[in-house]
Structure formats: structure tokens, C-alpha cells
């Protein structure tokens, strides 16, 4: 690798501001991995649409280059999908926190998966609401005391990958903020899936939050994660295999591309009209009016 060249490339993605995350925050790793992935794939900043949610994760919005969108808490998916459907040439990457994705925005998450909108979705899963000072999220371990649930989070811990796999998705992966290199590779594959027009690529990124998440720390993850980079394609294409793989949230947590549907069709291909429309709209309206009762 030509490091000099790589460094320059990443510089392309330099934002106007320096990050403000806490020391040791996993967002740094994700930030670097995204920049590297885009650079290595030679996608220039002006061809990418980076869509951010609200949260510590979304604070990346002005620390990276590219056309960017920074919208409402829990709502990054509709905006990103709307953008992609309006301009299929853009590489659209939506990022959001676990709070945004699995609570406020749960409906969007499920229906974006079902519809195979061809964007890339990266979830910064730090298992809490970082920005609002450490409340539990759906992925917070059950019974862990958090801000606003001092007796321990009472709801069952969500397994987001298992949930996603119940929807027959086209691309499911898991990364870890502590392993930037492998995360970068996963992100590249996810973006490639989009570029290939194959549907939604979803990556859950396990992210440390040293300030509020004392349950699943960087160290905790390092002991548990297991890289699955070397899955065979017949395994990656096997839904049951994948569902089995992701069950474990405690001892051997899989990292890598976990499932790729062999048959997925992107939304855009699904609705593609046979004949491109050549008439101008005024003419179309005139003809429509003429044909109406």
C-alpha cells in the first residue's frame, strides 16, 4: 500500500472541523474506517451523499467531506432513501445510532430492509443513547442500570441481526469500531453491494462508548468478537446458517459479512419500467386529460 497516497486520499474526506468525541470513543474508529473505505474505492466526495442521524454518531456531519445531510433523530433512512430514489447516481450512505435505529426509527429500519432500497446503512451500535447522556437503548443488555433506568433496563436485549435476518434481507454484516481495518473492508463490501444495484446493505457496528457504556467496553468486545472474514460463499448465502451465527451476543460475536441473499432484487430494479418515458410532461398531461372521463 502506498501510504502517502492513501493519506492524501483520506485527506480528501477531511471535514471542516475536528471531532469532539470523548477520548477513547469508538466513533473515531468508525470515522476513519468510512473515510478510508471511500478513499480506497476512489469515490470522490462530490459523488457521495452521507446522511447522518442525530446523536454522538451524527456529530460526524461536519468532520468529514462529501455532500451531507444531518436530519432528525431516528429519521435518517427516509431521507437517505428519498435522495437515492431521486438520484441513483449518488452513493448514499446512511449512518445512525442504535437509539435512532432500533427505537425511534424501528419502523423505517424494518421497511427499508423489506423494500431493498439500494443504499448502505451503518449503525453505530454503542448500546446506549450517548448524546443524551447514557440512557438505555434497545441493544443495552437487560438489567444493566442506566440513566433513567437506575434499577436496570427492564426490556429484553434486542438482537438486531437476528431481527434483520427474519426479513429475508440482501446484505447483513457486523463490524467493530475497535478493528478499523476489518470494519473498513466490510464497509467497502457494503458500498459495493449498493453500487452493484443489489439492494440494501446493512452493517451493525459494535461501538465502544467509554463514557456511558460500562457493560460492553472495548476490552469486553476484544475478548468476544470473532472474525468471520473467511466464510465460504455457500455459507454467506445460507439464511439458516446466518441465523445460527448471530444468535450469540455474549461469547463469540461474529464480525464480517454474515449474510448475502443470492436472489435479492433492489427496489429500483423491481419497479423499473420497460419503456423509458420520452414525452414531456405537459404532453403527457394533455393526453391524460383527453383520456379521462
Amino acid at each position: 500500500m502506498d501510504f502517502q497516497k492513501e493519506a492524501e486520499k483520506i485527506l480528501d474526506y477531511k471535514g471542516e472541523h475536528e471531532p469532539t468525541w470523548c477520548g477513547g470513543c469508538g466513533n473515531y474508529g468508525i470515522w476513519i474506517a468510512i473515510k478510508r473505505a471511500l478513499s480506497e474505492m476512489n469515490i470522490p466526495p462530490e459523488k457521495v451523499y452521507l446522511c447522518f442521524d442525530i446523536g454522538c454518531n451524527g456529530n460526524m456531519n461536519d468532520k468529514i467531506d462529501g455532500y451531507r445531510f444531518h436530519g432528525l433523530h431516528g429519521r435518517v433512512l427516509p431521507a437517505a432513501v428519498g435522495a437515492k430514489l431521486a438520484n441513483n447516481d449518488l452513493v448514499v450512505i446512511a449512518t445512525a445510532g442504535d437509539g435512532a435505529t432500533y427505537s425511534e426509527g424501528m419502523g423505517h429500519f424494518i421497511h427499508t430492509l423489506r423494500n431493498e432500497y439500494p443504499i448502505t446503512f451503518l449503525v453505530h451500535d454503542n448500546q446506549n443513547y450517548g448524546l443524551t447522556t447514557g440512557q438505555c437503548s434497545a441493544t443495552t443488555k437487560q438489567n444493566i442500570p442506566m440513566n433513567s433506568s437506575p434499577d436496570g433496563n427492564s426490556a429484553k436485549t434486542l438482537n438486531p441481526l437476528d431481527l434483520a435476518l427474519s426479513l429475508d434481507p440482501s446484505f447483513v454484516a457486523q463490524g467493530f469500531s475497535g478493528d478499523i481495518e476489518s470494519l473498513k473492508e466490510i464497509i467497502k463490501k457494503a458500498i459495493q453491494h449498493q453500487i452493484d444495484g443489489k439492494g440494501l446493505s446493512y452493517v451493525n457496528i459494535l461501538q465502544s462508548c467509554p463514557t456511558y457504556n460500562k457493560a460492553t467496553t472495548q476490552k469486553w468486545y476484544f475478548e468476544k468478537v470473532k472474525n468471520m472474514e473467511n466464510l465460504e460463499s455457500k455459507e454467506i448465502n445460507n439464511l439458516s446458517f446466518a441465523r445460527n451465527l448471530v444468535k450469540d451476543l455474549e461469547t463469540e460475536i461474529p464480525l464480517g459479512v454474515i449474510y448475502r441473499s443470492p436472489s435479492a432484487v433492489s427496489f429500483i430494479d423491481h419497479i423499473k419500467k420497460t419503456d423509458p418515458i420520452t414525452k414531456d410532461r405537459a404532453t403527457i398531461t394533455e393526453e391524460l386529460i383527453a383520456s379521462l372521463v
Partner: protein
Amino acid sequence: IVRSASNKVDVVIVLNQQGVKWHLEEIQEGGIVIHDTKKVRLTEKDSILLKEKNVQFIYIPAAELVKENEGNLQMANTAILGYLWKLFGLPINSIASVILSNFAKKPQIAEVNVKILRSGFAFEPKNFSDYKFPFHPLSFRDVIFPSIDQGKLKNYFSSEMMSKPNMSLSSNVLVSGNEAVSLGAITAEVSEFFGYPMTPSSGILTFLAEKAHVSGMLVKQVEDEITAAGMVIGSMSVGSRALTATSGGGFDLMTEHLSLAGITETPFVCVIGQRPGPGTGLPTWTTQADLTLAVYSGHGEFPRIVIAPRDTSEAFYLIQEAFNLTEKWQVPVLFLTDKFLAESLFLSDKFDARKVKIERSVFDTSTLTDEQKANLHRYADTETGVSPRWKVGTISKTYITNSDEHDIDGNVIDDSESAILMQNKRQKKVKFIEAELPKPIVYRNFDLTDENIKSYGDICIVSWGSTTNVVLDAMDVMKLENPTKKISCIHYSYLWPLNTVLVNEAKESGTKMLIFEGNYQSELNEMLKMKTGKGIENTLLKYDGRPFFLEEIVEKIYNLFK
């Protein structure tokens, strides 16, 4: 053109026993009951009532007429329809063409139906003293007329049957408000429609989806209203034209996104089909009770434009203007229809698909030097507050569409100076928009003499949205009945920012003023109070889900002349 609903019934068709019961009181003196069962059962009290009203009963053996033509029983209605058409004194070709075009894909069914229609038209009932259909002065000035080859009709009908006063409607269009909005959206080059079904706006989603092959528009039913609003903003944020439509309850859910459009100055258009709330309310009825909602919803403060078309014609043209305005000023535009306008068919002058020029107002960067490009700022402060908005993905100078308060490139800020600058920049658009928006339209049922060019007559009515249709009909009626009484109407289709010039002018002219609104809280009048210091003294409010009836409006005006 008939624009209003009436609460008097001339003809009742009884297809089941309960029909008569339901409408007993509304049948006009001298009205008619048509029935297809041999005998209509009535209580004694009811028979007396109907006799007093001189109501006639006409028995049409619809089942027999159907049988004659080898149709099936569901077609009985067609026979009755045929007879009705004769009763109305209308030419049979108009209604026949409707049938032909409805069954265009099933020519055999079409033929049977047309034959049954003819039998109905030809039918002569017994014991029927001659009946002069009590034409309302405005009824049936124009009639439905789809574009079916008239030659074809000659196969079925005598020239006599077709020889009624000229009804050529090739210069007219009969569509619902929803269809008019949809046609306007197609014409405005909207490229994405994201919707979620909700009465009375679902028709837009249905219509656009059905025409997607022809229009090329991407039409998608999404999982909820929040998604629809978010997707519209996403599409608009990269430089596209997108639309959504809902009703008040669904719109509530969109208001956080409305506010997002406000701070990011992203164009946004949403059709709000009004139906009576609160809550689910009267979901299949009409209202004008979401005006203040449109004006004040969404947290924080930001400029917006609110438009409410009066009829299908305004719906068609103004939705196109809505897109020009939202892109020019980079403020959200809310487009208020109502159930009455949205789902009823109205006849209108044919729409001109080339009348409203498309003005994208997307900043053209193609002629800029690299240096000029680098100096572009998406949120640069300008005289009008409007900054350059160029399409995402086109040049290497990027920006952030940022929900956080931001600097000229969209980076997050929170210092006092920048915050003030950005709020001022956004808000200063208001006075320019105010100056640019078309004034309310003044209608008069009298000629303006040159000397008195601003005269508002004896009475000046203020109204908005589809209520104005009924007001205009009432003005026509008054003119026929009382040609010396002069009435004007200030009709608002552009409601916000609120133009008060004409209302003030009218007030100063000394005319008696009167406002009609389909709501309880007198929403427009309250806003007029806020902006002019004084409301309109005479008010008629209606909030039972029904549109205004012609008779109510006429009566209210009469009372004011007393």
C-alpha cells in the same frame, strides 16, 4: 357551472325499502320518487306527508328492461339512469359516452349497458302527469362528456335522442380535486411521490400510481407519514421535485419534518386534504379546520406558504405554482384541499398544461469558474435571504443540509452571532414572499364603473378554499333574483403570508362584510384580526362535516340586506 351542494332533493331513487325513509323530509315539493320494486311500502304518516308535498311515484320495471337486453340484474341501475336522463331533459349521448369509456376494456358489457340505457331512456311510465324538472337556475349548465367517438353512438341512438342543446364539452374537463392535483403534479415535473393512504387524499396516491407508466413518476406507498415526509425532504435535498399528500392526522406526524425543511431551507410540498377532526373525527366528511394547523405547526419559527385551491382548476394550476414557489424561496408550501373538493367531480374549463412555466430555481453552476465554485455557499446571506441551491453531486464544492443551526456551508454553529444571522436570513424572505404572492381574487356580481374601480358593492364576502364555489353560485343566484344588490367576494387561495390589503380596502369602502368558513374557530377571521386589528363582523361558520349549501349562503346574504 355548478359548484355547490344543495340540501334539497328533487328526485329520490328507491333501490331498497329504507331509501324513502331516509330522505322523506328533504324531498322537495313536487318531487319524484322512482322505484324499481312494484310497490313501495310506506307508513300512513309518510304517505300523507308525501301527498301533501305532491310527490309523484314512478315505477320503472328495471329488471324487465334488463332482461330484454340480455343483461344481468346488476345493470338495473343503468335502466334507471337512462330514464333519469330523459327526465332531466338531457341528451343521451353524454351519459352513454361515460358508460362506453368506463367499460372501454369490456366492449360487450358496454354494449349491453348502452342498450339498457336506451330502454330506460325510451321508457314511458304510466300514471305520470307531466313533470317539469325544477331546474335550479344553475344546474346542468354543462354536462359530463368524455372523449368518445360520437360516431360510434349512432349505432345505438336515434339522432333525436342525441339532438339536445349543444353540450360539446371538448373544452371542459370533469375531474375530482385529487385528480386535478395529480395532473398538476405530473405537469410540474414532480418526479417522486411518496404517500400513505388517508382519506380524503388517498385518491392522489391511487391516481398517480395508476398513471406512473405514462408519467414516468416514481410513486411509492411507504410505511407511514413520517417516512413520506422524510423521503420528500431527502429527494428535494438532492435537487429533485417530490410530493406527498395526507390529511390532518397524518400531517401532524409530518410536522417535525416540516420544521426540518424550515431550518434546512429544503423545498417541501405537502397536500393536506382537510376532513373534520379532532382525532379520527368524521373521516369521510369535509371541513376547513386545518388552516391554523398549516400556519403554525412544526416547532420553532420559519417562513412558509399556505395555499388552498378553490376548485379543480386552481388545484391544477396552483400545485404547479406551489413547486415554483417552494424552490424559489426554499420554504415549505402546504397545499390545503378538503374532502368536498378532493373527492367530488367538478366540471371545469379544460386545463392548459403549458400555462404555468416551470421555474426550478436550481442554481446553475455550469458556467462558473473553479474559483467561483469554491466561493459558493449553500447558506450564504443575500438581500432576499435566498441562497444558491445547487444539486447534490454536481460540483466538488459540497455542503451540509443541516438540521442543527449552521454556518453558510452548513457546518454546525452555536454562537450567538451566527444564530441571529441565520434566523434573520431565513425570516427576511417573508416580506419578499408577501410582496410577490398573488393577491386574493375579487369576484363581483356587478359591473365595475370606471369611477368606482375599487368598489366592493353593498356586501363583500370573504372566503377561502372550496367554500368560495358556493359563494360564487350564491352571487349568481342573487344577481338573477335581485340585480340591484351588488355583491363582491374576496377569495383567498394564497392564505399565508396573509395579504390584508384588499380586506382593508373593502373595509374602508364601507361595504358590509361577511365571512364564510367551514370551521368552528373562524380560523381565517382570527388571522385577519391578528394582522389587521379587526375581524369581519358577520360570520357564518359550519362545522358538521357538510360543505356549505347554496341555500344557507343565499339566506345569510338576504338577511344581511334586511
